[in-house]
């Protein structure tokens, strides 16, 4: 077992998982916030756009999107982000993970928006705040605080879903695990080791978000 770990870059693979997850979480947060704003905007066309986004990406299998990014977008359409194959895969994996999880971030934020009484927006408007000021000063801060728990669940799902990047050959944890299991004996132990690796990544995230959601909850 020890020699397997010595011959394969176990930590390097998990480091890639962390990088993938980090950048994708950031991307998903930004895109998801924008889509959530679309979904609560007073303009019907924008709302429709937001709804269409969520329905499309929430209902498409992640594996499909991942494969499409390389086979469809990169090879057929020639949308290569980098000439370096590994880098290209890395970037595309981040984009796909961001775009896919943004739909869930949006829904988490919307559940946060639903915790806000209508009077908050009315009070914001009645002191003369514009729509965007009402959003940034009153609605979004409260929506984020009300959405911390579901956002935490989304982040945990994202970390685990980053393993799907293995299908396009990203050398993250699940990719390495597949390689080791194929080449070596003692696969149950290897599997167990990787599972523990993911628990070590996700468990603190869960604990952190639970405590944050308790501490930052808006008292009404």
């Amino acid at each position: 077992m020890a020699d397997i770990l010595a011959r394969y870059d176990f930590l390097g693979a998990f480091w890639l998982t962390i990088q993938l997850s980090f950048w994708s979480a950031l991307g998903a947060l930004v895109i998801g916030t924008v889509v959530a704003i679309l979904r609560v905007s007073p303009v019907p066309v924008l709302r429709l756009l937001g709804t269409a986004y969520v329905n499309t990406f929430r209902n498409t299998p992640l594996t499909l999107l991942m494969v499409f990014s390389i086979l469809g977008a990169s090879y057929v359409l020639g949308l290569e982000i980098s000439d370096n194959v590994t880098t290209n895969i890395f970037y595309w994996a981040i984009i796909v993970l961001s775009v896919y999880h943004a739909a869930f971030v949006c829904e988490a934020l919307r559940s946060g928006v639903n915790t806000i009484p209508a009077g908050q927006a009315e009070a914001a408007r009645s002191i003369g705040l514009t729509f965007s000021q009402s959003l940034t000063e009153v609605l979004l801060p409260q929506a984020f605080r009300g959405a911390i728990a579901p956002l935490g669940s989304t982040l945990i799902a994202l970390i685990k879903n980053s393993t799907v990047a293995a299908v396009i050959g990203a050398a993250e944890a699940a990719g390495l695990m597949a390689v080791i299991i194929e080449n070596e004996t003692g696969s149950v132990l290897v599997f167990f080791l990787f599972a523990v690796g993911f628990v070590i990544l996700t468990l603190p995230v869960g604990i952190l978000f639970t405590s944050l959601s308790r501490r930052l909850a808006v008292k009404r």
Partner: protein
Amino acid sequence: MSEPLVVIEGVNKHFGDLHVLKDINLSIDKGEVVILIGPSGSGKSTLCRTINRLETFESGSITIDGKTLPDEGKELANLRADVGMVFQSFNLFAHKTILENVTLGPIKVRKTPKAEAEKKAMELLGRVGVAHQAEKYPAQLSGGQQQRVAIARSLAMNPKVMLFDEPTSALDPEMVQEVLDVMVGLAKDGMTMIVVTHEMGFARKAADNVVFLADGEIVETNTPSEFFSNPTSARAKDFLSKILTH
């Protein structure tokens, strides 16, 4: 004295099939205090809310200080800044401190420097008697205190007119007076006020006129003493007999 500040002309509004405001005409002078009174569902809140366009209306016009209410956007926001609104349920920003609640509008809308906005806010909080609570959050205050903060938040914008929609009806009885006292003070200082309330003591003490609404129509306009002792319309008589007997 007679200088119309809020002029409502021929305003009609529907909620679906329900005709909630029927050809409302009302002119309120600078410094005037008007009470809106009437049965539940008569359209008092709706009328209040159309004045700062929290509700739209289909026909007629509302002008504030000579300016017509614009449809949406920046211009409407600017006009709303001149119209204070105090809600039944206070609606203080739950994630902001009392001080931040009062300074948000001045800083973001009026572009007042933070230090200056805070100084003015502390003065206003002192005036409504909650200065020592400035660093707390709304949920930590009693209803009466929250409502007084809400009044300070409106005042911080230097509004031309203030709307109050049943400001005391969500309060425990022992807190009603502290809020009414603040409102009487405002009226005495010359604030133009439109107040939805059934508080007759306040009406008698502070109001210039009482407007009685029923089924979306203005049925009677009168001085408080005349309205409460000698209402002319049958519907006002009927309404008053109901609220006076309990």
